[in-house]
């Protein structure tokens, strides 16, 4: 079982169990974790599921669409990702993501 920790901008944390096949974005919505808007529902075309990956094993690198969307974020960091593009897979290590102050 992969445990996903979401850290809000104010520092508060929520740990939830990941379901294989769901993205981090879908996981957050499923558990009512705030801080992810996901306007486009997971298509990597809105950028409102931005997060910072703090702790994880190697993840598949972002594709060109995700990279393009991340390139627009004024608050982009080296560990920026779109939560809708990170899938929970079988045997995946626990993962901790921090959420930005706001999505835009």
């Amino acid at each position, binding site marked *: 079982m992969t445990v996903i920790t979401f850290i809000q901008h104010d520092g508060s944390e929520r740990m939830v169990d990941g379901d294989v096949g769901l993205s981090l974005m879908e996981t957050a919505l499923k558990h009512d974790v705030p801080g992810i808007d996901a306007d486009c*529902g997971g298509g990597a*075309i809105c950028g409102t599921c931005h997060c910072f990956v703090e702790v994880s094993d190697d993840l598949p690198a972002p594709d060109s*669409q995700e990279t*393009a*969307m991340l*390139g*627009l974020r*004024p608050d982009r960091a080296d560990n920026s990702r779109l939560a809708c593009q990170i899938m929970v897979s079988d045997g995946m290590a626990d993962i901790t993501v921090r959420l930005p102050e*706001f999505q*835009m």
Partner: protein
Amino acid sequence: MNMPMGTSVPDYRGMSLEDLDVSDPRMFQYDYWHELFARLREECPIHYQPDSPAGPFWSVTRYEDIVAIERDTETFSSEPSIAIIDPEPDMILKMFIAMDPPEHDDQRRAVHHVVAPRNLQEFEALIRERTIEVLDSLPEDEPFDWVKLVSRDLTTKMLATLFDFPWEERNKLTKWSDMFTSDVRITAGEGYAREVIIEHITACLQRFTELWHERKGDGKEAFDLIRLLQADPNTENMVDDPLTYMGNIMLLIVGGNDTTRNSMSGGVVFLNQFPGEMAKVRQNPDLIPSMVSEIIRYQTPLPHMRRTTTRDVELNGRKIAKGEKVVLWFVSGNYDDAVIERPNDFWIERPSVRNHLSFGAGIHRCMGNRLAEMQLRILWEEALQRFETIEVVGEPKRTCNLFIRGFTELPVKVGRFQS
């Protein structure tokens, strides 16, 4: 529909695909566009029109095809223009909406902070105050024009508030915005000539340059879009590059004017067409944010954006040559039942209500979407508290413009709660 004598709705189902005219703004003026796009989605989702006032162009009408194009910015460029008509060489404002990466990304990142949610919170109280003033001044139990007294007045006041534009001059903002989007060639002849538009844009630049210099370093603790540009290292010298400064100002004025204005009118029309939805939101005001998203989908205030192919490309079996105009019909994608369930219903509890194309998609997705949603949310929070009834009491009149779906007149009567 009140069409003038001598005009009639084209027989979209009866004519041959080649003869379908996707360039006539009267389809929005008289609201008969549904049938045209429904047929295109079904039978010819990538349609070529060889001849129109704006020249030949392709129309893309299915949701998924529009998204695919939005993702491929290398093949489908936003340069030289996102309007069907190419810009005149004598006045090419630098707007990042009409740029490709990497320049687009740099420019957008530089100004995005002005509409970041943190700044929006600063604006919220002021915008609410203006909204209350406007609603409280509406006549009681007698018909008035909602477009004029609410939508137009309120968006003008909001724009003036955002720029801290001199209050007595605020109508200029709306005027400039209207002119900028009303070229005669997309308005069935009703718009403004090029020279007149250029004249006004020059005046606009002059005024905003003056305001920049007045504010620069005046030491005042104030909050407005001009000062936000001045305060950020990426944009602090923007005024030195007039075409970029003007481009960004224009984008902010135009982007936030007709779009929000027409959504304010559209909401009233839809809630009257669907009284069940009005009852639901009255019972549960927590539905206002999702109603706002549904209003924006249902209205689709900007029906299309244009791209230009940078190479020969095949799309859904159609071969599009390099250098052709490709028009993305958001208004059609938003009513595509392959993606949007029961698209013709105005349905405020729609699942995934934020999934629509009114703000576009991909790297050009509307930068002001949070601001727009906030303005509409405040309007409906305040309106539903005050008015027991908001009734459309006459035929709405719609805008004759291919680039804008909106209303020019909307007779409404309101009744206040008796306290």
